[in-house]
């Protein structure tokens, strides 16, 4: 499936993007031969038949794990390898935080169903879940700028993933945190509510089950009974859902990255389309498909770990 989808994207990308457009309007204008001369060694010239282009691209991947070069000659492999970690830094932290927060809130509100805390939690979550990521991120930028002005120094950085010229172990960590904190907050605000709702409704299904009452009868406190018995059963679908959202979150970071100026995969995606970088576009598509597969695999692993009824043969 991944291979087929990636190849299909290759042909689709050729249908919509034309590297030749990059040289339109150049001063001084490039002649036809010059353009072909620039593009041909990069396997991006449309003078070569499409099937032949496809084969040299595809065989390079199969035999040498070489995903090609952009119209200006940058290696796609290098770009993805570097940007993947920039994105991962942002996305993994945000996903973990959002999941933990969502589960914690779900447990808290479910054990106080229809009380004031539950009502407030529900209302907040339904609002935050439906705020657009763009609005949330820009709102946070405004708040952070206001805070910086109030304090007088730059506590939060609103662009980039790190500053230049910072050395030493602790300064680097502090600098990274200063950059990381705002986009992470933005992603967490959007992301936690889904987990919260799911965890709450699943736990409510389990909280009145017989085995929880048995556990209470044996002398466990309510908190212990929920944590050790009810929560474990209701965590399984939550884990599955979280694992499947990983690719969505990665791609969903497109907007966050472009607002906060991070050079991650999301930014790369925009650049490849704007610069008619066909090989880069296809590599991103393949990356997304692989992430989907990893998400499915993680979901299976989570079920095996959490559910003792499922046996691995």
């Amino acid at each position, binding site marked *: *499936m991944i291979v087929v989808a990636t190849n299909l*994207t290759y042909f689709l990308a050729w249908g919509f993007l034309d590297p030749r457009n990059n040289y339109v309007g150049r001063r001084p204008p490039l002649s036809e031969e010059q353009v072909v001369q620039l593009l041909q060694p990069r396997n991006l010239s449309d003078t070569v038949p499409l099937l032949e282009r496809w084969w040299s691209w595809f065989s390079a991947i199969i035999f040498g794990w070489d995903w090609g070069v952009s119209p200006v000659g940058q290696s796609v492999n290098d770009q993805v390898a570097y940007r993947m970690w920039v994105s991962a830094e942002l996305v993994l932290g945000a996903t973990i935080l959002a999941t933990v927060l969502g589960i914690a809130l779900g447990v808290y509100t479910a054990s106080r169903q229809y009380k004031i805390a539950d009502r407030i939690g529900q209302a907040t979550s339904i609002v935050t879940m439906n705020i657009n990521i*763009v609005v949330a991120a*820009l709102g946070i930028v405004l708040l952070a700028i206001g805070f910086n002005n109030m304090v007088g120094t730059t506590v939060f950085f609103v662009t980039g993933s790190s500053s230049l010229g910072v050395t030493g172990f602790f300064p680097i960590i502090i600098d990274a945190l200063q950059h990381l904190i705002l986009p992470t907050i933005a992603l967490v605000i959007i992301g936690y509510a889904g987990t919260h709702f799911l965890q709450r409704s699943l736990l409510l299904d389990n909280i009145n089950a017989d085995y929880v009452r048995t556990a209470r009868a044996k002398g466990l406190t309510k908190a212990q009974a929920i944590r050790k018995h009810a929560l474990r059963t209701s965590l399984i679908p939550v884990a599955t859902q979280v694992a499947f959202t990983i690719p969505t979150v990665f791609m969903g970071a497109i907007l966050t990255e*472009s607002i906060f100026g991070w050079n991650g995969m999301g930014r790369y*995606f925009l650049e490849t389309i704007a610069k008619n970088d066909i090989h880069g*576009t296809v590599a991103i*598509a393949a990356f997304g498909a692989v992430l*989907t597969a990893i998400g499915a695999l993680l979901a299976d692993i989570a079920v095996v770990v959490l559910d003792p009824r499922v046996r691995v043969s």
Partner: protein
Amino acid sequence: MPRNSIQPAVGPETTALRLPRKRMSKWELYSRRFRRNRPAVAGLVIFAVLVLFALVAPLLARYDHIELDFLNLGEPPSGEHWLGTTSAGNDTFAQVAIGLQRSLMIAVAVSVGTTVISAVVGTAAAYFSGMFERLTLLLIHFLMVVPTFLLLAMFSNSSGGDWRIISLIMILIGWFFPARVIWTMALSLREREYVHAARYMGVPGMKIVLRHMLPNIGSLLVINFTLGVVAAVMTETGLSFLGFGVKIPDVSLGSLIGSGANTITSAPWLFYFPAAALTLLTVSMALVADGLRDALDPTSAAGGRA
């Protein structure tokens, strides 16, 4: 005086007649359940106000959304320009109204399209089963792997910013996920007696799908539709924000926020008003969807007594 509505004692020793019980119609039941969910009612009111604003505001506005006022460049809100102007002299009030209108049109068009296609394809796949079902599922699973946002960006980038083409592409890319959900729902439906009865009476297959199976998942479709509006608004905003969606001189909430983002410290009103309109729109729609779920879904636990 209103008709006597108190039931007199009924028994062997009286001659009083049993008053006919007042039956509640389906719509009465739905509306009563919906009204009990107060946030949903608030959402509906907000949504109605927004629609009204999108329709009426362009008529009230003193300026057209394309018209440039060179005497007021980048002015904050004033009596002349109610929500301020952009650095090019566009009236923000008119822009927000037109942008809201455009976003709503795209969202409703996309949501109608995806709901109709996914409902028909999903139920038809379940009903006809066999080869047709397998092919449909294969197509759906294949589309799930394809990076849809990438396709969306590539297509709409080359569409030149025409909102009709953008909505069409969003429909083509958005139908398959709900179709899969509806297919699972319809699987149990196809084994029902009334479907068998209709089949043995010789009702043609497509008619069974449209007249017998679809009405039975109607409540799910209504909820899907409202949630689809929210999702479409979000996607469209993202696209337009990045510059792949609606293009100048046409505006949508996304493109307005996108241009407001560049001047967020110097001219924050360009960001505040479209962002507020967008947030109100999505949140109100989500509240309405929540209320509709309570009202329409017979298995919903939140419904309580009628």
